[in-house]
Each structure stands twice: as structure tokens, then as C-alpha cells.
């Protein structure tokens, strides 16, 4: 019938679409061919600019074309006056803005804008700041725009204080704040640096910030960003590496140095200096695994002259990084070893000592979080924050409660179970070490704690007996070799499959690894290099079912008494 709209079938629609794309592609290819031709023949002119306009408008990631535009502009800059350059750049900025409206996330577009702003004769930075504000209004998480803003701020010398106010405004708008909190984490230490903690703001500022972030997460407990930021506020700066312990062994003729952070000792350098009875001693430092990569422990061999058993005593002094940290230990006549070790609590190894003010604030925060948790029992961020607050306030007093919260948190957020188990393990090891301190213990019991990972082994070089039975360990870290004094190691009832990668433990005499998941003798190959090992228990492992297990093990470990059944 006449006058009626003809409705296309889906087939016809698809065909029409295909033809349209083909036409677009044709046009695209023609334009790019023309552009490359002009470039090849050195025609750096306005027509070339116009051609690239069309392409970059739809495909701003075509980086070579932005390069070409820059070449053209530089060429025109040579030929024209300053006003013409100004006008050209203005045009460029306008074109860039239209590109950004189509695609605000192209690296090429933003970088070109930076370049233009660095070339324009009279840059209008205020206008650029406004542009940023506009784009952030559209998408507050656009990191390209934030990075551009920081570029503008630096060129225009906008103050950090002003930028802080800018984030204030965004945060009170209460939506998608991660980028703003992140920016604050950069601005605050710049505005109010804590001289004792590089990269962190002063305590006064931290306390105010805690109040601010608390408001944020109580207003919207599901906004992740405030909780992430809060964890940073609770933290502290990484301290410079210090020497935790120096241990000298007459038996091994060796000296071990344990550090608080991984360090590198460059051969032939003055990084780590050793003085034996006031005289400098040249030694070769190595890590326990011999690979000399950044590590927490460095060892050296001592010459016989440094260990004369008739002398009443030998004094060993170790200097790190030009005296940044030093320690001295004494080896008395008749004694097989000597050591000097830091106090974990005094040196604030695991947590900062809190001022009364900070302690009060955190205590009240803990109470408020518990109230929130009662209202929103499924909120995992709140649960984790409660744990972190308890940790900061008093790890030992809150231990039982912390473990209970871990259970609740794992139930609320099962996807993070593995991470939470590891975190929980770290806290338990820390607590054990804190308790050890009071007893001056060399026997450590970490059994039955559900540990999934071991850490802080650099704190245990003096331990002689370690019980790790009944945990959930899948393997042993090479760092275990830092336990230079370890004589007895209990590993029964874990999930250990192999000891591959474990460097020799120089003093280990007895190893019990019953009820694990060791499949075959080759999984125990490293034990062949353990000089003192003479007892090995392996009941309840899959390798017990192998027909030749006993003989293979005997061949691998001839000096060791092995129980397989």
C-alpha cells in the first residue's frame, strides 16, 4: 500500500549494516593510504592534518597519526608566526577535546594534549584544570584524566593544599572515591611529612584522616575505597634494614647475620663489615642457599685464627651500611657458640608503639566498628578492619578474639579464604615470637594452629627445637635455612609434598614428617646435604606404599635412620 513505511527484515538490516561497514572501511583505508603517502612525500600541511582528523576521531589509538600531527605542527611552527602557532595549538586543543568526548580513555589523546600544552606559546593552565574537573565529573575514576590533572598541577604550580581541597569536595559527594583517596595518600605526606616515617603524614594529620575515613565507611559501608585507605592509615613506613641478630658458631667456623629487611651484600664492597677482636676481617658473604640474591640472612666462614679456643673470648662486631646498624657478640672460651639478638618488642618489629592519643582514637574506632558489624554482619570490610585494629592495639591481648573474627570473616568472604589463612598464620607466628621473648625460649611450639604459611623465620636463628605439627603447610620455604641452630623439626600432620628447594639446615639432627603427602624418595633429595641428620620419621606418607621406598631412601640418606612404617 502507498504511504505505509516499509519495514526491513532482519536479513535486510544485516546486509545494510554490512554494506555500511564496508563503506566506512573503504573510506578509512583510503584516508590512511593518503596520509601515509603525504608523509612519505614530505607534505606536512593543513590538508594532512585534516585527513588525520577523520581517522583519529574514530581511532585515537592509532599512535603513528598523533606522531604525524606533531611533525606537521613542528613544521608549521617553523614557517609561521607566534600568533599562528597559538591559533594552531588552540585548534589542536579543541580537536583533542572532541576526541576526548568520544573516547576519554585513549593514552594517545591525552599524551598529545600534554605535548600541545608544552608547545603552545601562552598556555592556559586554569582552563586545563577546568577541563579535568569536567571530565572527572563524568567519570571520577578516569585515571588518564587524573594523571593529566597532576601534569597540569605540576606545570601550573597549583598547591598541594588546593588539590587536597579538591579531593575534599569529591569525597563529600560520596561516590566512587578510590581515586580521590589515592590522591590524598600522595598529597598528605607532601604537605605534612613525618620526619620519622618517610612517605607518611604526621600523627596529628593521621588522626584527623582516621576521623574522615570513618565517616565515609559508616555512611556507606560497602564503598571499598574507604576501607582500603583505612588500612594504609593504620600502617607504617618500612624501616631501614637493621641487624637483628649475629650468631657465631665455633663448630661450623661460621658467622651468621640476620636482617630485618632483605639486603644485598655486594662482593668486595663495604656493605657488611666484620671486625674480629677489633681487627677488620675480610670474608666472603653468602646467603644460606648460596645464590646471593637479596635476603634476610648472610653468612661467612671464619678463619681458624678468629676462633682460637684458648683465648678467654673473641668479640665479633658487624657493621651494616656504614654503621647504620651494628651489633657485637662474644664467643667465650669453652662455649661452642655466641650471639647477640634484638628485642622484638623494643624494636617494634611487628607493630608501632602507640601514643595515648592514637590509642584512644583506635580504641573508639574498634568499638564503633563492632557496632557497625552488629548492624551489618555480612560486611567483610568491617570484619577485616576490626582484626587490623585489634592487631594495632594489642596483638596478644586480642589473640583469641582475633581468631574468632577470622572464622567469621572467612565465612562471610569465602573467596578470600586462602589470603585470610595466610594473614592469620602470619599473626600467629608473630604472637609466638612475642611470647618467646619473655621466656628467652629456644624451643618453639607452633603446632596445631592451622598455619598455611611460615614467616618471620629471620627472627628464629637461635631456635633449637621447632614444632610445626598439625598445621596446613604444603611446603617449607627456603628461608627455613636461616634456622642455624635447629636440631629437631616436627612436621607431622601437614600437607607437605616435597622438600625440593630447601637448603641444608646445618644442625638438624631429627626430622619427623609423618602423615604428610610425600610421594617419592626424590622429594626428599635436599636432605642428603644435611650434615647432621640422623633420624627421619616418614610414617603415613604415600611414599610408604612404593615397593622400593626403603632401599631408595637408604641409598639417598645412608647415615640416617629412617622409619617408614
Amino acid at each position, binding site marked *: 500500500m502507498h504511504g505505509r513505511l516499509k519495514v526491513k527484515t532482519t536479513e535486510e538490516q544485516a546486509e545494510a549494516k554490512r554494506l555500511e561497514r564496508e563503506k*566506512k*572501511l573503504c573510506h*578509512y*583505508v583510503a584516508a590512511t593510504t593518503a596520509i*601515509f603517502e603525504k608523509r612519505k612525500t614530505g607534505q606536512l600541511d593543513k590538508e594532512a592534518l585534516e585527513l588525520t582528523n577523520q581517522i583519529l576521531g*574514530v*581511532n585515537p*589509538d*592509532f*599512535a*603513528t597519526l*598523533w*606522531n604525524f600531527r*606533531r611533525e606537521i605542527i613542528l613544521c608549521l611552527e617553523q614557517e609561521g608566526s607566534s600568533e599562528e602557532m597559538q591559533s594552531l595549538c588552540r585548534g589542536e586543543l579543541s580537536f583533542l577535546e572532541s576526541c576526548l568526548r568520544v573516547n576519554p580513555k585513549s*593514552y594517545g589523546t591525552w*599524551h598529545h594534549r600534554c*605535548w600541545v600544552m608544552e608547545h603552545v606559546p601562552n598556555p592556559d593552565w586554569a582552563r586545563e584544570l577546568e577541563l579535568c574537573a569536567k571530565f572527572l565529573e563524568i567519570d571520577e*575514576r578516569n*585515571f588518564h584524566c*587524573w*594523571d593529566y590533572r*597532576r601534569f597540569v598541577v605540576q606545570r601550573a604550580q597549583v598547591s598541594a593544599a588546593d588539590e587536597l581541597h579538591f579531593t575534599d569536595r569529591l569525597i563529600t559527594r560520596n*561516590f*566512587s572515591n*578510590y*581515586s580521590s583517596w*589515592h*590522591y590524598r*595518600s*600522595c598529597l598528605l605526606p607532601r604537605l605534612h611529612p613525618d620526619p620519622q616515617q618517610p612517605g607518611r603524614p604526621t600523627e596529628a594529620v593521621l588522626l584527623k584522616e582516621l576521623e574522615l575515613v570513618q565517616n565515609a565507611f559508616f555512611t*556507606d*559501608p*560497602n*564503598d*571499598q*575505597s574507604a576501607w*582500603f*585507605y583505612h*588500612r*594504609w592509615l593504620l*600502617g607504617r613506613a*618500612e624501616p631501614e634494614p637493621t641487624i637483628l641478630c649475629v650468631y657465631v658458631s665455633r663448630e661450623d667456623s661460621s658467622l651468621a647475620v640476620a636482617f630485618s*629487611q*632483605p639486603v644485598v651484600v655486594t662482593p668486595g664492597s663495604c656493605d657488611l663489615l666484620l671486625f674480629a677482636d677489633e681487627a677488620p676481617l675480610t670474608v666472603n658473604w653468602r646467603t644460606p642457599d648460596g645464590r646471593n*640474591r*637479596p*635476603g634476610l640472612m648472610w653468612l661467612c666462614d671464619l678463619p681458624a685464627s678468629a676462633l682460637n679456643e684458648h683465648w678467654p673470648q673473641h668479640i665479633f662486631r658487624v657493621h651494616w651500611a656504614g654503621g647504620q646498624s651494628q651489633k657485637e657478640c662474644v664467643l667465650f672460651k669453652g662455649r661452642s657458640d655466641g650471639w647477640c639478638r634484638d628485642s622484638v618488642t623494643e624494636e617494634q618489629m611487628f607493630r608501632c608503639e602507640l601514643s595515648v592519643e592514637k590509642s584512644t582514637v583506635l580504641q573508639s574506632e574498634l568499638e564503633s566498628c563492632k557496632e557497625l558489624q552488629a548492624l551489618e554482619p*555480612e560486611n567483610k570490610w568491617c570484619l577485616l578492619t576490626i582484626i587490623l585494629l585489634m592487631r594495632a592495639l594489642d596483638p596478644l591481648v586480642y589473640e583469641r578474639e582475633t581468631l574468632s573474627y577470622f572464622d567469621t570473616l572467612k565465612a562471610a568472604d*569465602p*573467596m*578470600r579464604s*586462602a*589470603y585470610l589463612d*595466610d*594473614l592469620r598464620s602470619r599473626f600467629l607466628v608473630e604472637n609466638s615470637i612475642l611470647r618467646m621473648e619473655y621466656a628467652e625460649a629456644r624451643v618453639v611450639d607452633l603446632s596445631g594452629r592451622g598455619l598455611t604459611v611460615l614467616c618471620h623465620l629471620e627472627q628464629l636463628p637461635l631456635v633449637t627445637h621447632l614444632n610445626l605439627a598439625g598445621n596446613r603447610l*604444603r611446603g617449607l*620455604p*627456603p*628461608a627455613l635455612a636461616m634456622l642455624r641452630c635447629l636440631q629437631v623439626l616436627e612436621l607431622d600432620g601437614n600437607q607437605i609434598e616435597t622438600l625440593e*628447594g630447601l637448603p641444608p639446615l646445618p644442625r638438624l639432627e631429627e626430622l619427623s614428617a609423618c602423615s604428610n603427602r610425600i610421594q617419592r624418595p626424590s622429594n626428599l633429595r635436599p636432605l642428603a646435604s644435611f650434615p647432621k641428620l640422623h633420624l627421619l620419621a616418614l610414617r603415613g606418607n604415600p611414599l610408604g606404599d612404593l615397593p622400593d621406598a626403603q632401599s631408595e631412601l637408604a641409598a639417598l640418606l645412608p647415615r640416617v635412620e629412617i622409619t617408614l612404617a
Partner: protein
Amino acid sequence: MKSCQHESGGISASIGHDLTFYIPLVLSRFLPYVVDVIKLWTTYKACKKKMDHLPETNGGTPQKDVVIKPDAPSTLFLEKHADYIASYGAKKDDYEYCMSEYLRMSGVYWGLTVMDLMGQLQRMTKEEILAFIKSCQHECGGISASIGHDPHLLYTLSAVQILTLYDSLHVVDVNKIVDYVKSLQKEDGSFAGDKWGEIDTRFSFCAAATLALLGKLDVVDVEKAVEFVLSCMNFDGGFGCRPGSESHAGQIYCCTGFLAITGQLHQINADLLGWWLCERQLPSGGLNGRPEKVDPFHTLFGIAGLSLLGDEQIKPVSPVFCMPEDILQRINVQPELVS
């Protein structure tokens, strides 16, 4: 990831998928069990071209995620993926193919690497590719994405990765590549992507990976380069493009890769970064790139991600270089991971 497979093979640009590779990539470097591997593995219920965005309304800020339909495939269509890649470059007049010419070298690297991981490299046209790469090396030594395009570190790395895969570095002037990379390092240790000066930690990774594959890492000031990358570490343990930039999973991949290559992984706060990364995993099992952001994806990264998670049909992939492990073993470039 299996849930985003297409009938034609290939894995769609879909929520979280390139990050689904980056994250296991980074985590496998130092916290192998942090991501809920079971959940990620069993996220196979749907195959669809359009993903539904379902905000999770727990009151307050919605969390963008996908819904996986009950009839989605639960097996990996490895052959279909291989077919998809093998025929990808054939239709030279395909719209998307033309539009993506600006990254062709990287596209070839993705395609070849995924084919090799699936044991299908022989289906690709080696000689044609080698000739292509040769014609993309410029006077300055740098390599471009395609013929006629300008050289850039991104494509220089991709080219070197391809040539390493094919054991054919001789088709280019390696010394000039080394000179090119070296020339892009700035005083503060950072690397520009090309002569036009864009600074980004992605380029620090490109530089380090390129030189490491060529055995020439020592031509640049490694200490300064490390200093610059570390200056991009943020409050949350992550890394951004430049100092002061927000953390992003892609950048984190580049920076941890860089630190692995330069033997500096101990400088990372594993507890903090591990937490940030495992929080990228959404209820569907997929991963986003940063808090409350959703990103699209590539077939290579989906397959490589599965390799890192232990899929036995796929060859082991290096989490540092995103290349097959056996290739890196051949050239003896296997940086330490965090133990």
C-alpha cells in the same frame, strides 16, 4: 573464562578477562594460592556474546559483575580457539582487523603465543611473519606495529618475543634494538615509549623484558630504573603509570614483571598487594582491573590465565614474560619468583 567462549572460538572482550590473566599472572609470581582457584576454575556456565551487567546491591555502591547463564559450556574448546587464531589474519579486509593495524605486532605475539601454548604453533605462517618483522625495524633500531607505522617500545618487545618464540633473532639487527631501548631511558630511570616522550611504567617493563630476552639488561641503568618503578608504588601496595598514578592491575603486572626481571621482588609488600589483587575477584569468579572497575579482554590472556591455574591441555606459561616456559628455558631466562 570458559564461559566467555564463542562458537567460532576466541574469547570475547568481556568483563574482567584480560585482568583475569594479569591477576593470576601476578599472584603466581608470589602468592600461588591467594586467588580462589576453585571458584575461578568452575566459573563455566555460560557462553554468550552479550554479558549482562548486574549490579550487586548490598546497599550503597553497586559492584559490576557478570551473570553466567546455566547453559554455558563447561569444557574448554581448545581446538576452536586454535581455529579462530589460525584464520584470524586471513580476512585482511575485515573492519576490526584494519582498525587494529596500529597494534598488529602485539596481535601477532598474542596469537602466536596462545597457539604455542596450545601446541599449535606450526599452523602459523612463520616465514611470512619473520619477513613482516624485518620490514618493521626502523633506522633507529626500534620496531613498529606494522609496515609504515612508527617504532615504539611496545612493539619492539612484541617483536622480540615473537622472534624468541621462533628462535629467529637473526632476522633483525639486535644491536640496534639494544641501542634503541637504551636511548629511551631518562635521567630519573624511567623509560619513554618512543622519541615523543610518553613516560609509563609499562615501558619500563617493555625495556627490561626486551633486554632480558636479548641478554643485555646491563646496558641500561638498572638501579635507576628500579628506583623509578618503586617511586610508582602506592598506598595500597600497587603501581600506576607514573609516580602519583592510581594502582591498576595492568600496571601492576608490568611493575612486578619488571621487578622480577631485575631481581627486586623483595621490595614489594606482598601482604598488601596480595590483598588488593585477590580483592579483584568478583562473585562470578572473574576479575576486575581495580576496585569497582570493569574491563575487556584477549584470548591469549584467558588461555594463559588458565595455564597458570594448572590446565593440563595448555603448556606452562611464564608469569613474568607471558610466553611459554619452555622457550624461556631454552634461552635460560627464568627470573626468580617470590618463594
